[in-house]
């Protein structure tokens, strides 16, 4: 590479909103139902059916707009985007082009020690399409309209990002805000959050933008980062060879770690947008905005401040716990039950995160209840179980959300506090390990550890380690 290049990136992020029903009909939005069971004449494009706007969609969109510092458009409208595809039952998508609900916002991202504003050009509401399933065996295509009409917002950023790091930080920030608002679960794998990357490169110091490409099919943060690196390299290579970058849409194949062109600008479709005549303009009053604003839940920065005041936990813990709303919710609920913030935090920051990583899970995927975590904290606090047993019990809670009180009882995991029984075992251990006993008595403090270990082993880990230690010392004196 002879020259220095700068990458310029803008993002189009689609987020499925968490409404119970679809944007223009009363069908359920639940994921994973049998094909075409959550459908009606409206979301399957039957003739004569008409869309009726779900007000909750507007409120979620307003909430996201407000939380990302956007101006809310007081009179906004829907438009039709016309294109033929079987997953699109009317062959037009109801979206917003001319008057989107929110415009001119920004979010702040932190990379390293710097804070940067990423501007949001606009955000609009639209309906999702159905899903095509290709049956290679029968050589047919089937279509499932359950997802057709699920509400989406598309958040379009300005080309303000310069690296994959910034892109990930921006996406994480958006996800955090939207999750905090409860407007979406933002799961990339399930497609409830999807990002298209617009990327161009230019010589460092240049004022003008290079020709951009749009990258689709990015299903994880890792894929996004890889696609950005790949596309940056591809474009620089072209420029170095003196060849032009072609404005086109490309599809990323994360397995091959490469992309291929889907369509160029020349064969880009003319969507023939025009105002949707079946819906009336949405008039958003000051009062409505104020109402949505007043219902806005506590966002992360406010939560951090409150944690500092309310809970005796280190700043570091607070930052990690509040990164995702579901983790913070879990922390607050468990703490409210057991009143031990630091202990709860330890379980979440330690074992929970370890197991999440092991199982490739996101905080939103956590299934266990704060009640059972709180019970576990109480059991260890009261010395009913010791810490090694507690770890074992926690794994059970993590995977199966068992009640630790019942489990400990059933499995006989309670710490043995019976002096008589312990004394018997200790006598046995002393008798069977004369060398270690001699070493200890000879002044080797370390030998005591071996004896404690033996005792714990014989008592299947249920002994109270403090008590074992103390009694051993007494008996060996």
């Amino acid at each position, binding site marked *: 590479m002879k020259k220095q290049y700068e990458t310029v990136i803008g993002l189009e992020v689609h987020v499925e909103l968490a409404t119970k029903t679809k944007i223009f009909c009363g069908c359920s939005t639940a994921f994973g139902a049998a094909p075409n069971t959550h459908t009606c*004449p409206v979301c*399957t*494009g*039957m*003739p*004569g*059916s*008409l*869309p*009726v*706007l779900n007000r909750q969609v507007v409120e979620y969109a307003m909430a996201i707009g407000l939380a990302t510092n956007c101006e809310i458009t007081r009179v906004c409208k829907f438009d*039709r985007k*016309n294109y*033929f595809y*079987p997953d699109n*039952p*009317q*062959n*037009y998508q109801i979206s917003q082009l001319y008057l989107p609900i929110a415009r001119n916002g920004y979010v702040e991202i932190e990379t390293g020690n710097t804070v940067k504003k990423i501007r949001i050009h606009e955000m609009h509401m639209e309906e999702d399409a159905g899903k095509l399933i290709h049956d290679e065996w029968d050589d047919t*295509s089937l*279509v499932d309209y359950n997802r057709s009409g699920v509400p989406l917002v598309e958040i379009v950023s300005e080309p303000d990002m310069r690296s994959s790091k910034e892109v990930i930080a921006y996406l994480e920030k958006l996800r955090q805000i939207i999750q905090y608002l409860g407007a979406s679960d933002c799961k990339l794998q399930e497609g409830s959050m999807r990002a298209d990357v617009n990327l161009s490169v230019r010589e460092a110091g240049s004022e003008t933008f290079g020709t951009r490409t749009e990258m689709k099919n990015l299903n994880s943060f890792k894929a996004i980062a890889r696609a950005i690196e790949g596309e940056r390299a591809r474009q620089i290579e072209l420029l170095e060879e003196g060849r032009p970058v072609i404005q086109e849409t490309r599809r990323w194949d994360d397995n091959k770690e490469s992309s291929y062109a889907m369509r160029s600008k020349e064969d880009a479709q*003319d969507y*023939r*947008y*025009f105002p949707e*005549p*079946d*819906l*009336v303009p949405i008039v958003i009053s000051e009062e409505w905005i104020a109402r949505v604003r007043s219902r806005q839940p506590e966002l992360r920065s406010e939560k951090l401040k409150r944690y500092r005041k309310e809970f005796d936990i280190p700043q570091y813990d607070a930052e990690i716990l509040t990164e995702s709303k579901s983790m913070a919710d879990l922390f607050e609920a468990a703490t409210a039950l057991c009143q031990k913030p630091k202990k709860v935090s330890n379980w979440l920051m330690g074992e929970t995160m370890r197991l999440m990583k092991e199982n490739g899970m996101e905080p939103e995927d956590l299934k266990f209840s704060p009640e059972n975590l709180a019970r576990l904290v109480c059991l260890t606090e009261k010395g009913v179980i010791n810490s090694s047993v507690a770890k074992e019990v926690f794994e059970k809670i993590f995977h199966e959300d068992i009640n630790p009180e019942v489990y400990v009882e059933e499995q006989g995991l309670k710490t043995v506090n019976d002096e008589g029984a312990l004394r018997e075992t200790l006598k046995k251990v002393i008798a069977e390990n004369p060398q270690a006993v001699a070493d200890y008595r000879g002044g080797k403090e370390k030998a005591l550890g071996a004896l404690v270990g033996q005792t714990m082993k014989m008592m299947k880990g249920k002994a109270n380690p403090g008590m074992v230690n103390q009694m051993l010392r007494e008996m060996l004196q």
Partner: protein
Amino acid sequence: MELLDLTAVELGKKIRQREVSAAEAVEAVFARAETAEPLLHSYVTFNREDALAQAEEVQKKIIAGELTGPLAGVPVAVKDNLCIAGELTTCSSKILSDYRPTYTAEAVRNLQRSGAVILGKTNMDEFAMGSTTETSWYGPTRNPHHPEHVPGGSSGGSCAAVAAQECFYALGSDTGGSIRQPSSFCGVVGLKPTYGTVSRYGLIAYGSSLDQIGPITKDAADCAAVLEAIASYDEKDSTSIRREDLHFTEALTEDVKGLRIGIPADYFGEGLDEEVAEAIRAAANILEEQGAVVERFHLSLVDYAIPAYYVIASAEASSNLERFDGVKYGYRTADYDGLHNMYKKTRSEGFGAEVKRRIMLGSFVLSSGYYDAYYLKALKTKALIKQAFDQAFEKYDLLLGPTAPTTAPLLGESLCDPLKMYLGDIYTIAVNLAGLPGMAVPVGRDQNGLPIGMQLIGNHFQEKILLRAAYTYECATNRQFEKPADIEKLQETCREKTVRNTVEKKEEVSAGKEVQAR
């Protein structure tokens, strides 16, 4: 055939008084249809058994006192672009020739709640695009007054059926004059309500921002009763308007004293047939004699309505008709190679020429680079036209003029010259663009015996003024709809030709169905 001469409201009264049963009424119209249909072809589907079953149900409810309204037990015909659950709903198009919706249009449900007996679905221009009912895939409907002439369109089947007494009233839809113009050509009463008055849910859309469903009846009293039955606020239609003044039958008083009637001078310009002009002037004089204040004025912008309409309606239609693609329902081409070829062949084979013409026109005006020049300009024109009407209604309670420049043209005459056909909508179209109520009322015939209709135009929500004026006119002239001469006699002259046409068409229909079954 005395029974058939009754209006819907008169028949309803006799049914409630047990002088006639709903079933007898169905049998009477069926007998008439049996004679008239081979000639006229008003209906696409006519289901006698089903109608008799409904009549029986309704009769029970009338006897039980559950149904007491003016239309209980009265047989009605419904335009074939209104969905009825389980019934063929084709829009007179090959592409929907086997389509049976799972839901019923709100306007039809409202009629069902009033105890209406639905006879079947009436013929129309394909997807309501046309002014003659000749663009129907099932072949044209003929004018009952003169079978060599068209009934008008697109609700030609509904209007012909009412005129020929093949039903007691009918529903139509009106996007640019599709109720008023065929009503005028067939000599019946037709009303397009204020946009938003009747729910569009279940009406297969042509131009969504212009479409309204309305009554086609024998007189103003029937018109008021039917409008009262079908108008409702409907949450399923976002453009539906909540109105408190839906008691239209209250408007049936013989009183136009002091009513300010404006006659747009622009409606009497070039292209207007002298006989039509004369009949409209005479009608205006009658209302003046009854105490109305009649005055000529300049409405302006009349010439701009047609281009604005064809841009807006075609743009919306090009999008509304995208869903007919062979994927989910309706006609699909027999042989195809891949998705795009399937789309192309299905739509090429499934749509008729006039529909294709409007899809192409609509797609063109929405194309990037042309949107501002055509679609946006048309929207601005629409707003100006609305303003012109607003100004007129500052001075007048009602506007009066012709419904169409001529009486019904000969079959085949209009289709050879679509531009001329489009110009025939000149007086009706602006009313849709402005969202106003408009009504066609028969006022006489030309020397060929073809009916002439006047058009009454009201301000938003002023259907009652239209009904009052129409009712007063009818009382003063002692007339209702124009009854055709003798259907049976007309039929003799045309029998040969029509039978041949119908047979050919039926073969084509069944061929189409076979293709699809494969």
